[in-house]
């Protein structure tokens, strides 16, 4: 377990890793990655019981699935900084012969990744499967997921939500990154999501809302509430309200940095806002 200042320092380093990875290959998705940095840093360093020596089956440890695979820069940084693979490997992001593919995959054997994601809407189903396997194995650990809010437009999510609610898959906590943005504009402009709390509750879930999804203490409080609600015959959903591009002022509050890399000048600006705390790769 880490204190809030340690986690903040790690977030600052993770933000540097994100913008540096994306800048180096002039491609990738910085906006959503930055928005979820506090959440994933807190999850991996304060909440989950996990083993960086990495076993694919994940028996007797908490397991995380990134369903919105395009925010790969943040999960790569968080996994590397947690000891799953060498931090210097972040320099290979999106390059030929790398284990750090544009979207996360098991295909090149990257420790920490248990399923490919990128084509949206599939992670909740996979999480249900692992949650069911844990029950069969008498394994009392938890399955966590992260989804984009735009991703909820995929029909498979609601097949999975219906199954989990109807079958009391209560060892699974699914977090929705509610940043209100997607590629073509705001979620309201593209395809309005409506009342997500009511939707998940109608599917038989317990719902926790974290209004300050970029605040580490608020994330900790929300996660603890979610964990306290788990194992009570209902799946648990966290509506995590985040700011896309958080921590880099010129990227915040807009969908425009969903999938665009910063240029040299913008990189320098972004790095000046986020001190190097643990050493750049």
């Amino acid at each position, binding site marked *: 377990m880490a204190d809030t200042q340690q986690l903040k320092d790690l977030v600052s380093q993770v933000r540097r890793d994100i913008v540096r990875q994306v800048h180096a290959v002039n491609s990738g998705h910085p906006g959503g990655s930055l928005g979820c940095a506090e959440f994933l840093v807190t999850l991996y360093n304060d909440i989950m019981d996990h083993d960086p020596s990495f076993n694919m089956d994940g028996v007797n440890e908490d397991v995380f699935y990134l369903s919105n695979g395009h925010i790969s820069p943040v999960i790569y940084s968080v996994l590397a900084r947690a000891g799953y693979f060498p931090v210097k490997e972040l320099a290979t992001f999106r390059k030929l012969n790398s284990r750090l593919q544009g979207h996360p995959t098991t295909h090149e054997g990257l420790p920490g990744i248990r399923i490919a994601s990128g084509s949206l809407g599939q992670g909740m189903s996979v999480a249900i*499967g692992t949650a069911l396997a844990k029950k069969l194995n008498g394994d009392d650990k938890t399955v966590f997921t992260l989804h984009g809010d735009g991703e909820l437009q995929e029909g498979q999510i609601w097949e999975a939500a219906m199954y989990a609610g109807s079958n009391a898959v209560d060892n699974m906590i699914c977090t929705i990154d509610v940043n209100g943005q997607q590629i073509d504009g705001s979620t309201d402009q593209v395809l309005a999501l409506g009342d997500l709390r009511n939707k998940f509750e109608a599917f038989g879930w317990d719902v926790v809302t974290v209004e300050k999804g970029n605040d580490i203490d608020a994330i900790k409080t929300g996660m603890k509430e979610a964990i306290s609600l788990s194992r009570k015959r209902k799946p648990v959903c966290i509506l995590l309200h985040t700011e896309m591009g958080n921590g880099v002022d010129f990227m915040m509050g807009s969908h425009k940095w969903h999938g665009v890399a910063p240029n040299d000048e913008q990189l320098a600006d972004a790095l000046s806002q986020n001190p190097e705390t643990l050493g750049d790769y």
Partner: protein
Amino acid sequence: MKVYENTGNKDTRSGFGAGLTQLGKTNEKVVALCADLTGSLKMNEFAANHPDRFFQVGIAEANMMGIAAGLTIGGKIPFTGTFANFSTGRVYDQIRQSIAYSDKNVKICASHSGLTLGEDGATHQILEDIGLMKMLPGMTVINTCDFNQTKAATLAIADYHGPVYLRFGRPKVANFTPENGDFQIGKAVHLQEGTDVTIVATGHLVWEALEAAKELNEKGISADVINIHTIKPLDEKAIIDSVKKTGCIVTAEEHNFLGGLGESVARTLAQHHPAPQEFVATQDTFGESGTPAQLLEKYGLNAANIVSKAQAVVKRK
């Protein structure tokens, strides 16, 4: 000629059900998922014997494929069951990303393939599934010919690590392969020795190929008959060795000629031993309603058409 005895018509899906029932007793890791077709897939017995290891997912095939992928993470061996159409085309991206690309040990078991599901018509008669599945890197594709072989294949794929597509069907067809026979993934089964033409068949067309060989024999044409139950990986050596002997080939399958066994054979021969080939398969068309027998006759998927294609191909040598 070898004589093959039909020990009584049975459906291949019941062979799958029998295999799954046996696996339930012998392999604790085996779990099963079904999308509201438990009776059609003959999964009832497994479901009744092992309610904790059977997952009814409802009419939600995409979710079923994802759950199956997730169950492997924790060491389970999931068998999914639904119709071939809903096992492949409907969920292609889920299989591609969460199972094939992720190298998950999921067994996708598909009944009611091809035309012979009959009266339900073209919405349910997929004739493209072999092509869809064989194009996925790492996917093993199996199409069994009778009850006994389907049961044997069901047992065999549980012991193989990796994604598998197992294709079988609805109609009661001749049961002629050995009971409790050995099933080797990727290994062709040589059924008749012949010298004039090779007939390579898969699935329900294997029995038709044997019937055709008898008729050809009466017409003075000696047919080498091979049962290809595994379309991928293909037993290329068995096919090439046979064609080296006969000089020509007929492929027979209950599938579109685009993307099916015939195309895999044509590629193999083009690379290694070019030879005249004729295709018994549907000709880039959808199916329609009708009885299985009527459909097989209308679309030429029977012994009579194998005979006429064989007669045609020997003239092209």
